C-alpha cells in the first residue's frame, strides 16, 4: 500500500515569533474563489461610495487681497509660487506650500489685467488699466528697499491681456491691437490688427510658439502668427468669448470660455465646427485653463462655481463650490496636475484638489496598490446603473439647480416650437441643424 495524506507542517504556516509577519500562502485557483463577479461588483460599489465620501476638494483659502482677484500667473519652474493680480492694482506672490503671501506691491493704477512669467521664470510681466507694461524681478527686493519694476513700458493703446512666449524672449499684449514685444525694445516689434476695437485675451501656443490666439469683442476668435504681417484667420461665434486656453499636449486644439454658458473646443485646422461643446455652466464662463496632461481642463463661471471637464467630453466630471465663493473670475491648474486655483470677486484665492477624493500626503506602496485596484474596479463597473448614479451625483447650490431647470425648460420649449414648425411646414423646409453648427456664425481667412 502506498498512501499519502495531506499533512501540513505547522512550521510552514504559522509564524515563529511575533516579530515576523504572518504567513499567508495564496492559491489563485478560481475554484477556491467562488462568486468572483458579484464580489467584485460589491467592491466596485464600495470604492465608488468611498470616493464620494472622501471627496473633500477644498484645500485652503489664500486671503490678503483687498479687492477682487482678476488674474493669475503660474510660475513655469516653481510649483509653490503663484502670482495674483487684483482689481485695485495690487499684485501678490504666494508661497503655496506655506499658504502665505510672500510679496505684494501695487503694480498699476486700476485693474491688473494680466500677469505672465517669462519662460525661465526670472521675470514677471504685468499689464494694467494704466496702459503700462511693467517688468518685475522674480526676486523680492532687499528688506528696506522699495518695490521697483525693472522696466516700465508705456503703451500707446489700452491693454487687456498679456502672454509670454514659451521659448523666446518675446511677449504679446492685446487691447486695441495685438502687439508683439521684445524685451530689448520699448516699442512693439509688430502690431497686428483686424478691424476690431477690443481684444480681451491673448494666448501663445505652447508648442508652435509663434502662433497666437485672441478673443475679440466682436464675438470672434482670431489666430495670429507672429512671423507674418497679417492675422491668420478668424472665427465668429454667436456670443463673446471671454478666455482662451491652448491644450498643452494636443497643441492644435484650444478651448474658449464663452458668454453663453458653454465652452467650445476647436481644432485649429477645422474652425468651421467646434470639436466639442462643453455644457453644464448656468452663467457666463469667465476663465478656462488646461491641466498639464492635456486630458482635462477647469473652467470658472459667473454662476459662482468651478467645473472640471474631460477635454473630449461634453459634460463636466466635477463641480466645486462653496457657500462664500462669489463670481469666479479666474482659474488655473497647477503644473503638477494636482491642484486648482480659483480667484473670485470676494477677494479670495482658493486652492482645490484636482481630484476631489485624492489623499494628500505620503501614500505607502500597499495603499497605492489599493487605490490603483479601486480605480480599475470603478472603471470596469462604471456602466452599472447604481454605480453610475452614485459616481455622477453632485450636490449643487440651489441657485444653480434652479437655473438648470430654467435652462432646460427654455431648451425644451425651443425644441417643441421647432418640431411644431417643422410639422406644419413643407418637408425639408425646416432642416435639422446640429448643435455644433448653431454656434459658429462664420469663418474669415
Amino acid at each position: 500500500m502506498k498512501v499519502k495524506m495531506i499533512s501540513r507542517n505547522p512550521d510552514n504556516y504559522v509564524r515563529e515569533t511575533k516579530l515576523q509577519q504572518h504567513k499567508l500562502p495564496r492559491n489563485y485557483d478560481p475554484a477556491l474563489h467562488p462568486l468572483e463577479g458579484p464580489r467584485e461588483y460589491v467592491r466596485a460599489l464600495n470604492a465608488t461610495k468611498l470616493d464620494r465620501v472622501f471627496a473633500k476638494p477644498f484645500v485652503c483659502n489664500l486671503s490678503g487681497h483687498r479687492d477682487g482677484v482678476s488674474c493669475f500667473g503660474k510660475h513655469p519652474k516653481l510649483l509653490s509660487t503663484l502670482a495674483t493680480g487684483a482689481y485695485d492694482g495690487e499684485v501678490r506672490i504666494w508661497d503655496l506650500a506655506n499658504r502665505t503671501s510672500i510679496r505684494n506691491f501695487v503694480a498699476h493704477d486700476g485693474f491688473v489685467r494680466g500677469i505672465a512669467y517669462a519662460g525661465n521664470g526670472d521675470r514677471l510681466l504685468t499689464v494694467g488699466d494704466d496702459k503700462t507694461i511693467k517688468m518685475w524681478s522674480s526676486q523680492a527686493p532687499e528688506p528696506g528697499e522699495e518695490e521697483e519694476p525693472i522696466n516700465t513700458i508705456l503703451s500707446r493703446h489700452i491693454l487687456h491681456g498679456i502672454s509670454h512666449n514659451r521659448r523666446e524672449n518675446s511677449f504679446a499684449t492685446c487691447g486695441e491691437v495685438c502687439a508683439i514685444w521684445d524685451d530689448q525694445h520699448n516699442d512693439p516689434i509688430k502690431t497686428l490688427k483686424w478691424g476690431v476695437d477690443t481684444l480681451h485675451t491673448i494666448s501663445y501656443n505652447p508648442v508652435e510658439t509663434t502662433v497666437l490666439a485672441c478673443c475679440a469683442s466682436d464675438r470672434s476668435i482670431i489666430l495670429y502668427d507672429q512671423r507674418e504681417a497679417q492675422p491668420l484667420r478668424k472665427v465668429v461665434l454667436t456670443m463673446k468669448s471671454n478666455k482662451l486656453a491652448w491644450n498643452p499636449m494636443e497643441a492644435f486644439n484650444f478651448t474658449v470660455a464663452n458668454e453663453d454658458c458653454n465652452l467650445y473646443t476647436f481644432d485649429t485646422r477645422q474652425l468651421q465646427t467646434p470639436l466639442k461643446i462643453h455644457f453644464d455652466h448656468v452663467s457666463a464662463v469667465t476663465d478656462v485653463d488646461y491641466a498639464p496632461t492635456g486630458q482635462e481642463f477647469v473652467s470658472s463661471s459667473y454662476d459662482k462655481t468651478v467645473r472640471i471637464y474631460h477635454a473630449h467630453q461634453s459634460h463636466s466630471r466635477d463641480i466645486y463650490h462653496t457657500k462664500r465663493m462669489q463670481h469666479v473670475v479666474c482659474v488655473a491648474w497647477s503644473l503638477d496636475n494636482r491642484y486648482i486655483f480659483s480667484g473670485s470677486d470676494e477677494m479670495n484665492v482658493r486652492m482645490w484638489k484636482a481630484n476631489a477624493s485624492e489623499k494628500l500626503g505620503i501614500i505607502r506602496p500597499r495603499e497605492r496598490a489599493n487605490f490603483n485596484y479601486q480605480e480599475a474596479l470603478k472603471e470596469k463597473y462604471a456602466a452599472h446603473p447604481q454605480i453610475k448614479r452614485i459616481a455622477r451625483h453632485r450636490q449643487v447650490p440651489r441657485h444653480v439647480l434652479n437655473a438648470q431647470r430654467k435652462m432646460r425648460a427654455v431648451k425644451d420649449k425651443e425644441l417643441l416650437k421647432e418640431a411644431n414648425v417643422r410639422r406644419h411646414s413643407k418637408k425639408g423646409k425646416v432642416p435639422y441643424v446640429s448643435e455644433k453648427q448653431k454656434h459658429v456664425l462664420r469663418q474669415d481667412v
Partner: protein
Amino acid sequence: MTKTAPKGRKKPPARYFDVAAGKSEDDIANPIKLKRRNQQNFKGDFLKMQSHYKKQKFDKKKPTGSQDDKPKVPKISKELMDKYSRGDAVDSRGIKTRHFKEQQQRKEIYLEYATEQAARTELLLQETAGQLEADAEETTAGYRQEEIAANVDLQSAAKHFALKLDFGPYTMRYTKNGRHLLLGGRRGHVAAFDWVTKKLHCEFNVMETVADVQWLHVPTMYAVAQKEWVYFYDKKGTELHCVKRLTRVNRLDFLPYHFLLAAANSAGYASWLDVSIGELVGNFSTGLGDIRHMRHNPSNGVLCIGGGKGVVSMWSPKVREPLATILCHSTAMTALTVDPKGMHLVTAGLDRMVKVWDIRNLNDTPLATFRLRLPANELDVSQRGMLALSQGTYLETYTDVLEGGGTGLRDKLPYLRQRCDASVHGLRFCPYEDVLGVSTANGFHSLLVPGAGEPNYDALEDNPYETSKQRREHEVHALLEKIPPELITLDPHEITGVDAPTLQEKIDAKRQLFHLKPPRININPRHKMKGRGGTAKAARNKQIVKDMQRKDFIAEVRKAKKGVIADHKLKNDGDAGQQPKVKKERPVRSVLDRFKPKQQNQQKSRK
C-alpha cells in the same frame, strides 16, 4: 607616411595603418560606415521617423527584440492556462471603430498576461494532494481504516478517531476552513470543538430536539435549529439569540459570501436570514411540504431543495418562484448534494438510483447514473470531486463523481468502503483535509480518505491556521464585501456580462405589440392671459393635442406590427420555398360513411 625598408633587412612588421594583408580591396574601401553628412556631428541615436516606424501589431506569437538577452521563461501548458482562464477572448472582429478595437485587443493581452501570471503561481504551492495506491492483487476498497492509519504519519493518523455519544442520531458540520467541528444530537446534545487539536469549545444539552446545526461566518458562532425556534450560540455555549421567526426548522445552511442563514422548515417555508443585520431577506412558502433535503450551490448561492416527489427546485431569496426545477427521480428523494465547484448536482432517491446532473446546463438527462442495492441516505462531494454515499450503516467513497460505480460490480469497486456501527445520519468531507466526517445514530467517526481535500488553501479566503486577530480582520473584510441577496442568480457571472435581451424577451416584446394600449396623456396647458380664449377653448386645445399624440402612437404601433407580420410572412414563404407544402385533400364525406367500420377510432378509445 610609411618608412621604406632599408636594403638587406627584412620587411618591417605590418602595421594597422598599412593595407591589411589577406583582405580584399572591397573590405578596406569602407572601413567605417559614416553617418550622413547632416548627421556627422550628432553623437546620439537617431529616432526613427513616424513614417519609417513600422506599427507593432498585437501579435502574441511575434517575438520582440532579440531573445538571447532575455531570460527564457518556461511555457505554461494549455491545461494549466485553462484552469486559470476566465473564458475565451472577446472576438474583436465585430468591433466597428479602430480605436475601440485596439483598446479591446490591448485589454485581451493584459487579461492573458494576468491568467499566465496566476498560472505561474502554481509553482509556489507547497503541498501535494493525498493519494492511495493499492499493491498488486489488492484493491483500495479492501483497505480498512486501521490499515491506512497504521501506514500514515502520526499527525495524519491522529485524524482518525471515533466518538461514542449517547444523545442519538447526530448531525454535524465543519467550518469553512475545516478547523472546527459542530455536532448536534437529536436529543439535545450540542458540542463544538477544534477537531484537529481535540480541544473542546463547549458541550451542553439544550433539553430540546435538535434538528440541525450550522456554523455562521466565523468559528465563534453557530446556529442550532431546535424544536420550535432557531437559536444562536457562541463558542462557549452562551445563547446569543433566539430567532422566533424561524419556526420548526428542519435544515440549516449558510451562504458565507451573502451572510445569509438559510432555513427550511417542516411547513415548506424557505427563509433567508441576514445574520449581519438580523433581517429576514426572504421568507416564503415553497409549496413543497416538509422539506428534508436542502443544500446550497457554493458557486452561485442558489438553494437546492429536494422534494418528496423526486423534484429538485432551486430558490433565490428575492424570487418567489423556483429559478429552475429538475425532475430527478420518479420516487421520493433521499439525499442531494452539490459539488464545491458548483458543476454537478448529485441526487439519490428511493428508487435506489444515484444521478449526477450538470447544473450549469440543466439538461433533462443526467451525466451519470448508477444503481445501488439500497437507497443512499446521505451524499457528499469533496473539494477534489470525490463522492461519498451511505446506505444505512454502510458507506463508500468514489474517486470521481462521474465514475461512481454500482455496488457489487467487480470492475467498478469503490475507492474506500466502511461499515459503521449504527446508521449514518450525517456525512461531510472536511475542507482542506483528507478526512470524511460521519455522524451516526450513536456517535461520530472521522475517516481517512487520502486525496479528498484541496491541499493548498488560500489564506485570504479560508485559513485553518488563522489567529483571532486575523479572524477579526477577515470578518470585517467579508462584511464589507457582503453580496446583496438580489445578486443570487443561476449564472453568477451575469453581473459582469452584457445585458442583452434573450430570445424569449424579444419574442415577448413582439407579442406585446399586438396588445398595446395607447398611454394616458396628461397635459397641463399654459394659462393664457385674459381675452385669449376661455375654458372651453383650453379644453378643446387639450383634446386636440391628446388626439394627435394618440394618433401618432397608433400609427407607430401599426407600422411596427406590419414589420413583424411582414417578417413572419417572409420567413414562412422561405420555408415554403424549400419544402412545398402539399395540401391535404379532405376526404369527401357522404351520408353513407356512418356505416363504415370505425376500426382506428375504436382501438384508440379502448386504450
